[in-house]
């Protein structure tokens, strides 16, 4: 069976990013608002991992499994890079993407 990326590769690169992005942003879910609220939870280990992977994906796009991201999230931004940048702005506003302290 063609299962989701995070099921096939639970420890794969950006598995948390792809799983959470799919769970909230797949067009049949389309719940950016809930993800925005979750993104504000500084003490949530899963959201910290998500933010870290999103930062890494933006700064190292060549490491991202691009086909998996596209087929799972089905964004309409035109490219993985544009989607990831737009997602950062949607969730973290003007916060700099650079390496976290």
């Amino acid at each position, binding site marked *: *069976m*063609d*299962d*989701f990326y*995070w*099921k096939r590769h639970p420890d794969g690169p950006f598995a948390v990013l792809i*799983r959470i992005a*799919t*769970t*909230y942003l*797949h*067009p*049949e*879910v*389309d*719940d950016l608002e*809930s*993800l925005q*609220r*979750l993104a504000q939870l500084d003490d949530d280990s899963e959201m910290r991992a998500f933010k870290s992977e999103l930062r890494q994906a933006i700064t190292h796009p060549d490491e991202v499994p*691009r*086909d998996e991201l*596209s*087929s799972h999230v*089905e*964004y*309409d*931004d*035109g*490219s*993985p890079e544009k989607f990831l940048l737009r997602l950062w702005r949607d969730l973290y506003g003007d916060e700099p993407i650079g390496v976290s302290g």
Partner: protein
Amino acid sequence: MDVLIFARLVLFVTGRLLKAHTFSVGELDRGSDCDKPAEPVTVGEGTPRGRELGVVVETRTRGEAYADLRQSAESGWDRSRRFDAPHGELAAFRAERAGLPEVSSEEAGRYVERHRAGRPWLETAGRASPEALRIIVAADLGGGHGHIRHEGWVTERASMRRVAYLEDPAQLDAAQRQRGIDGLRPGGRYHVCGGLASRITDPDAYATALAHGAEDPDVSTALSTPYKRDRHPDLVRIPIADLLGKDGHKVCTGWQLEPVEGSIDVARDNRRAWRVAIAEGRQPDVPQPAARPVPTFEGGTIVFVISQNKQRNGYEIATLFPQPPARDIPSR
């Protein structure tokens, strides 16, 4: 003898009518293989039989007939195929296993009569078994949209236009639908859709997929997740054959967005830009989107989305939709 003469008369008239109403693929495809966005939409299947002569009366629009014919020609879909449902299992199914309200058959019938005018997707009642209808009404009482966008009430044409033009089958206002406004979300939001719009064409099959899916360990675990505001359990994929049997894929159809410049990413981006331009009354500066039938769902899966229930105190199966095998989905 009178019966024989009458039968011959029926056959003669039927043959004449079928010739008058048969649409050839070539005629429909003349000039464009895209439906025209301005054509009036009739969301719903209707082929009632003429009472006097017992012949089939074609009530579909040209666009609906075109989409049906393309789907049949390109995927082998049999419009007349009916799903052999496990009625005993459906009758015994408790909707609370799917996070949905319990509904008796009698309550389901009353609900449909009371609401069908304002909720036309309940027209599926005409084709569903009583056991399946009970489950579909339970879904309608929930907060999800699977039975509205991914079940047999949705026509092939509506499915095609959803993926190509982002027209929401759930949007009952024709003008709003043509503007791409979502029919279920408040605030005049644009409807969103991935690169695929799919449906389970038979209401009994839809109910069976929901009932069997609710018993799947991964779905059951997701539904049992302790409720937390803003949290969604992960999506779950289950093989179509596991839910609907080895021929279950034959009651699944879909339309996929045509890639642009070989890319589905570009196609989705263009579609969004086209949609916004049309809604704003501007001339789009991208090509009009196009869609083609999914060739087959054999070997495919059904995706379950588990979301917060209406009461915001637990989770329910919010929607389910078929997907073809990954090899048949256009890549980035």
